[in-house]
């Protein structure tokens, strides 16, 4: 076991010693975007090699701690235990970079007459407090709730910011991905789900009201970037500050430049507002 670990560490060291080799690991939410960035960047800088893999934010942080990856993609902020792990591994907090914005939309079946909900109503639907569409002004039919796996950063974000930390209804169907949620909602006329706006497909995206009295806002680039759409989050990249120089620093700067941010929209997320691009 130990020998194997040493061997692994040795090969990783050898790999990172090779000039211009960057490994990226982490969030599945970010993996497509990270691959796109890597592809474009490698096209422009032929001496740099970037390897991107997913596996989940937790996996990314574990790899960051064991120093088997240079960059960790994260769809949520680092947790206390993970920062502590980094401190134990390389005696420093990982540096956090915001790399994109993501607006979360609420999907319903296209036949559903409902157009808008408040954040609180959405929360009550997902906790199971509201069980019938007529309670929020829809048809008299039971609501089927579709949610993500609890390993998803999206799940965690939704639970903390829309359900306000309360539990999802036990009957909420857990789907393996956003695409599966959309698929299910499109097939189920009483279904409701959530996920990135870009994945919406043929489902209907509800407009969301922050409070009872505020206007209903539809999720799109403008409303997410200027912060009027109430359900949005940052996506992050974490790095060991000791490694944040040379090629890696150049790559991180490029990602957050106008050039790098151009590709964010192709993948379905939203570019960072200008004031957040340098930090």
């Amino acid at each position, binding site marked *: 076991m130990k020998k194997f670990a040493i061997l692994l560490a040795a090969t990783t060291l050898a790999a990172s010693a090779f000039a211009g080799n960057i490994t990226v690991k982490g969030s599945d939410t970010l993996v497509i975007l990270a691959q796109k960035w890597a592809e474009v960047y490698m096209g422009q800088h032929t001496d740099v090699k970037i390897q991107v893999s997913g596996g989940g934010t937790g996996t990314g942080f574990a790899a960051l701690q064991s120093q088997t990856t240079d960059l960790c993609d994260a769809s949520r902020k680092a*947790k206390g235990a993970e920062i502590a792990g980094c401190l134990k591994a390389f005696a420093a*907090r990982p540096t956090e970079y915001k790399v994109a914005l993501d607006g979360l939309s609420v999907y319903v079946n296209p036949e559903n007459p409902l157009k808008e909900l408040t954040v609180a109503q959405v929360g009550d639907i997902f906790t199971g407090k509201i069980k019938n569409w007529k309670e929020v002004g829809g048809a008299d039919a039971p609501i089927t709730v579709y949610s993500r796996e609890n390993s998803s950063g999206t799940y965690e974000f939704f639970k903390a910011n829309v359900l306000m930390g309360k539990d999802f209804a036990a009957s909420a169907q*857990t789907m393996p991905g956003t695409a599966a949620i959309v698929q299910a909602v499109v097939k189920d006329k009483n279904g409701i789900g959530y996920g990135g706006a870009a994945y919406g497909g043929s489902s209907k995206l509800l407009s969301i009201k922050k409070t009872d009295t505020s206007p209903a806002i539809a999720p799109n680039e403008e409303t997410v970037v200027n912060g009027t759409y109430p359900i949005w989050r940052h996506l992050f990249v974490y790095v060991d500050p000791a490694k944040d120089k040379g090629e890696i620093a150049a790559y991180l700067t490029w990602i957050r430049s106008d050039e790098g941010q151009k590709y964010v929209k192709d993948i379905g997320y939203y570019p960072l507002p200008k004031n957040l691009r340098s930090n």
Partner: protein
Amino acid sequence: MGIHRGHKARPGEWLAEKFIFLVSLSAILMVLLIFLFVAREALPVFLGQTNTALVQKPIPPVEMDKHSPAELQAYLELTPDQYAKMNKATLRSLMDVKVEAQDDVPEDFRNDPDAKINTTEWKYLVDSHKWSGYDKPEYIWQPVGQIKKFNIIPLFVGTLKITLIGLLFAVPLAVGAAIYVSQLARPRVREIVKPAIELLSGIPSVVVGVFALLVMATVLQSIFHYQTRLNAFVAGIALGFAVIPVIFSIAEDALTSVPRAYTQGALALGASRWQTAWQIVLPAALPGVFAAAVLGFGRAIGETMIVLMVCSASVMSWSIFDSARSITTTIAAEMAEAVNGGPHYRILFMLGALLFAATFVSNMIGDFVIHRFKLKLEGKR
């Protein structure tokens, strides 16, 4: 034991024999190592060393010097090695992180009685509890969030529910098909049907899962008119498709290996082909058929992908038309995001260890029963 055929083994044979022995030994070693690994990762849960209480009193970093190194080391969850290597600034940052984690707790949760509970204690793992915000004691699996609820009962119920539906669907069909193919079918029909059923095992379970998710769920809902489209029933039927080829091929082998003399004797005495198959061949092959069912159970309880695709809400309910979540699904879906070495990670490993134990015991029982059957059939008891 060696090869004893009245002559000394040639060097080549000797080598081959030892090599095969080594391979089988390494297989046993591998199983043992995997089990040890799983058990080691799960050990803190069994020993009650994990603590998930949301509100804990952190030691303020300024009071760092008031505590002995041993206390600090335990508080910061460091090994003696790690502690020795730390400089003061890093230790201080570690303590800061602990304080920050407490500061991050939302106001609503500070005074919640649940926030003081260590949810990884056994009574919360296996017994229902009246959490705040719920009207009655409930079994809840919600391992992510402010108050982490790790009750494993819904997962066990879900696993059993789906597995049993799968077996109830698969065993009669597979055994029936095996009887037909081995006893009743004409050779030409057998040559088509047998490979066709065995081909079913070549379909990747992801594909079966997608098919169930997109097609079967809709069809079954339109037939049975239940409310939840994706439920344990759909998952069980889809699982049945994955299990049928396993049960079929073993049962068919067992039925075919019944001595021809039995069949010929029965037919000669005037029994019809159906009577021969049902009353002579099937009882004689029963241990093999039972073994097929037990192996099918092992395959079904360990199947991940199909259940993961079709249904995975951790509802505490025995109704087959409610959703369910199996243990394998839980491990597969949640391991990637669990904080390494954290309580959630440990509990997932504990589930793995329990699943391992469950399959081990079921195989032991299967083996034992088969042995008893065999002795009985051979008239030795």
